[in-house]
């Protein structure tokens, strides 16, 4: 069945029936997306890292997207996937924290509670076939207890000492499994994270050389300003790879 759709200012064109109005039953695909998030516990707290890219299909359309945000006093959240859904999740979380603050009872929601709340939202949307198209990493510290967890669009959730989303799962986690230790100092943790970020920059098409690192400790949260890393291209093999075999890549 052919479907007609009007284009800019009144013209009409044939619409691809696969993308036709299935109305508000389900989200089909994401538009503006963020790539990997990396998270890991270290001696004093938790570190999250990401790049600041918002891809639009294969185009690196937006280059200053903040994908790591603070939630209340004790939690950081990092998001990959559809940015509009992340912005909506931030609205839910900001409201949650606001209502919590309004009790003014000396208690505040910690990362475990926020994670549980998010998990309910994500899983219920998944059951209605209308997911929030994200993979989220939540890190935080409350009363000395470090927390690092993840939840994604189908409701899968778990905690670990180090986590990643998207490509990070394949490229960053092996590095972390091998080199992570419980007692990393902040400096060592940053070096390890940067090692992972560099690999993602080399090997993930939707990553850019503009990163944000955020840390959270019992003292508080810091989201550092965006910065770029130096890349290495000096391998002798890179000079002339086709030398012995014309046409090779």
């Amino acid at each position, binding site marked *: 069945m052919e479907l007609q759709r009007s284009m800019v*200012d*009144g013209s009409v064109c044939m619409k691809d029936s696969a993308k036709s109005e299935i109305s508000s039953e389900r989200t089909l695909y994401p538009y*503006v997306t963020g790539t990997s998030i990396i998270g890991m516990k270290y001696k004093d707290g938790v570190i999250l890292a990401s790049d600041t890219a918002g891809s639009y299909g294969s185009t690196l359309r937006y280059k200053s997207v903040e994908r790591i945000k603070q939630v209340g006093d004790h939690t950081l959240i990092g998001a990959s996937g559809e940015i509009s859904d992340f912005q909506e999740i931030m609205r839910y979380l900001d409201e949650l924290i606001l209502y919590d603050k309004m009790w003014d009872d000396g208690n505040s929601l910690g990362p475990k509670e926020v994670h549980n709340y998010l998990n309910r939202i994500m899983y219920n949307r998944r059951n209605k076939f209308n997911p929030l198209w994200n993979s989220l990493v939540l890190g935080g510290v409350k009363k000395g207890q470090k927390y690092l967890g993840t939840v994604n669009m189908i409701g899968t959730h778990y905690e670990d000492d180090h986590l990643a989303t998207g490509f990070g799962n394949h490229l960053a986690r092996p590095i972390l499994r091998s080199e992570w230790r419980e007692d990393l100092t902040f400096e060592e943790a940053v070096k390890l994270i940067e090692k992972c970020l560099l690999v993602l920059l080399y090997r993930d098409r939707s990553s850019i050389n503009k990163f944000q690192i955020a840390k959270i400790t019992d003292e508080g949260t810091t989201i550092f300003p965006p910065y770029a890393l130096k890349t290495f291209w000096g391998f002798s093999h890179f000079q002339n790879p086709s030398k012995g075999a014309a046409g090779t890549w």
Partner: protein
Amino acid sequence: MDLDLSAPHSTGTTIIGVTYNGGVVLGADSRTSTGMYVANRASDKITELTDNVYVCRSGSAADTQVISDYVRYFLHQHTIQLGQPATVKVAANLVRLLSYQNKNMLQAGVIVGGWDKYEGGQIYSVPLGGTILRQPFSIGGSGSSYLYGFFDQAWKEDMTHEEAEQLVVKAASLAMARDGASGGVVRTVTINAEGVTRKFYGGDTLPLWHDELEPTNSLLDLLSSSVPEPMST
């Protein structure tokens, strides 16, 4: 799961919004195409939401028109209740709300631009899906593909109004030269503390690019001039 991530599903348009040191300049081409036919060669894609906020529309005509109409209606009420002009941020967020909540049914990529007394000139990009992002400049529509590199090189902070206007016209005209779905005239709207100014850059007043020739009245004029135009390959 079959993900269609070839998202650049934007349509026959080039739209641009840039901030400068006193406000914003919005620009767009004027071509509306029905498949291969140009249905309207002088359309106006920059639409008023309030006195101080305009929106550049790309995507489905119906969708963007209806969104604009709703947002204009809401903003009108909001202005009355507020007792002063609405802010650009509020206008952009209203557009985002409609876009996001109906994301499965809409095909609308817009750029909201305007001026208010709190933040001065602002540009907000609201692409497909309903993400909202404030940017110093933004491009959209099918013609924008040809402008990413251009803006990476030509954009600078704190331009004067003349520089900003010329940048927008140059960019739109470059996109129109290469994008079959963009063409016609370039319309610009400048919004600042003083108010709103509409400009129109007709076909022949736009600069010529590579492999484009100076327009003439007729071959006969060329033949009757002393030196015939040389042929070129």
